[in-house]
């Protein structure tokens, strides 16, 4: 009985060992020098603060437009009135423009694809005009704002859902002179 127990123990020990050795063969344990932590203290420098004016002076027209300092607004289907939720955007645009009275801006009117080519040019121009008039009503010099309509020829996104149509029904503000 005792002998049997010893044999069982021995067999199970061997089995356990072989299982261990199998695992060990799969994942070789890393053995060698201890891992050295590489560290570097972060330089405690502060980026120089650039005022909006300084940024404006520094940036080219392309950069200003790329940064979208002036935000586009969107319109309702077939409509050219400024939406209530777009008025704060227009106010922000106007505030920025009033800060830099030398800036000249081109308002581009665009439409979604659910209109005919000819009518959409007219509708896009109405949108650009409405945006211009709104800026002027907020105190901008009308002579500094030009308008153009592209109708449906320059969609922002391709897509046949209301979200895409909404994004394409827009007025964009392009800075043409600073």
């Amino acid at each position, binding site marked *: 009985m005792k002998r049997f127990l010893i044999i069982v123990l021995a067999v199970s020990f061997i089995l356990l060992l072989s299982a261990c050795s199998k695992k060990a063969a799969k994942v070789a344990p890393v053995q060698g020098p201890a891992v050295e932590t590489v560290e570097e203290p972060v330089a405690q420098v502060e980026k120089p603060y650039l005022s909006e004016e300084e940024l404006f002076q520094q940036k080219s027209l392309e950069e200003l437009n790329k940064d979208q300092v002036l935000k586009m607004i969107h319109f309702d289907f*077939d409509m050219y009135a400024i939406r209530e939720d777009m008025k704060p955007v227009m106010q922000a645009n106007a505030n920025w423009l009033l800060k830099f009275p030398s800036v000249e801006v081109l308002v581009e009117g665009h439409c979604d*694809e*659910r*209109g*005919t*080519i*000819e*009518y959409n*040019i*007219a*509708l896009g*121009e*109405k949108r650009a*005009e409405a945006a211009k008039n709104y800026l002027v009503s907020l105190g901008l010099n009308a002579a500094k704002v030009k308008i*153009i*309509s*592209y109708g449906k*020829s320059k969609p922002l996104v391709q897509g046949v859902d209301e979200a895409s149509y909404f994004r394409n029904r827009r007025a964009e503000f392009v800075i043409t002179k600073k």
Partner: protein
Amino acid sequence: MKLRRTILLLLVILSFAPLRGQEEITIRIREGMPMVPVAMPAFLLNPAAQNSETAAAVYDTLWKDLEFSRIFKMVPREHYAYIPAFNPNAIRFKDWASIQANILISGELEVTADDRVIFSFKVYEVTGERFIFGRNFGGKKDLARLIAHRAADEMLKHFGERPLFTSKIAYISETGDDRDVYIMDYDGQRPTRITFSSALDMLPSWSADNEKILYTSYRNLSPELFMFHIYSGKTELLSSGGSNYAADWSPAGDRIVFTSTKHGNAEIYLKDMKTGQEKRLTFNPAIDTSPCWSPNGREIAFTSQRGGTPQIYIMDAEGSNVRRVTMEGSYHDSPAWSPDGMRLAFVSRIENRFDIYIFNLKSNEISKLTENAGRNENPSWSPDGRHLAFSSNRSGRYQIYLVDYDGRNVRQITSRGENKMPKWQRSAK
């Protein structure tokens, strides 16, 4: 019975017509009249023309033109096998009558040593067993299709119809970011690029003499009207101030109408092309656009949003006597007046679909020309008023299609890139 009477009537007319004269036959074959059955056996070819693509091109083009006409009906070629082979020197009219041919076209085609084509054809009236007229055309080999179109136009003229097959269509083709003006044959063949600007070009319109094209271009940043002289390559800027677009040249070629925002709002203006004088025709805070002449040059159809939504209106060419044409629906645009003055084609938007409708100005009846397949836009009538060109994205990208006045025989004529805004010449040269 009815058919026989028509044919008889035709015979009477034809017998009074001079054999080779240029005089126009005044009776016109009207819609609903049976088509004239035409047989055209294979052409007699000289050795150089045997198995040549040129000979095949002339034959096929002429066949397709006549088939397209809605005036002629081609007797199927399989039927020719039932009768003895055609012999141009001894025509057995009875045989051709037995396969229901009413008109017989006998053609001879020669390819010369200097690569020119000479095409001669003779037209016979089968039951009367007589020669009606004939023509000879010669030209460079690469003009084979044009030679066939000329021959087909001669057929139309002799049946009292206006020539059609040598007419061209101007359109806008888009490859990459470029959108330029092109012209092509009525069947979509032989496209030629006309403008080479990196800006948007759009909405072409032909002059009455077919030598100039008026179009809208963004090359100076805002939409303006340019006039291109096709045969001298000269381009002229015609407009000034505001946005100017969607021009239509008057049928006589002396005036143009267009949309302009030079006084702040989209209004319709008329410009005298001789004096350069402009006249404002609409005075309305709403959008007025898409002007189009009536064929007699006395009236102008246009789109106005003055009633809340874009609708079609007609006014006298002086801007007076404005009346609304479309009463139902919420969105109409792109009016096109048929050459006979009786009908207006336009685009109507219903639930985000654009279809082309035809409004009969006499009966006030509206019929639908295209059937719920994508967006169908910018209808333009053929010179004979039996066909229309339009653009459609039914196959994915915009392409140009032709359709008969009754909605039959829709065919796509462009396939490369994206093609739209077709404008057919008012008349073949």
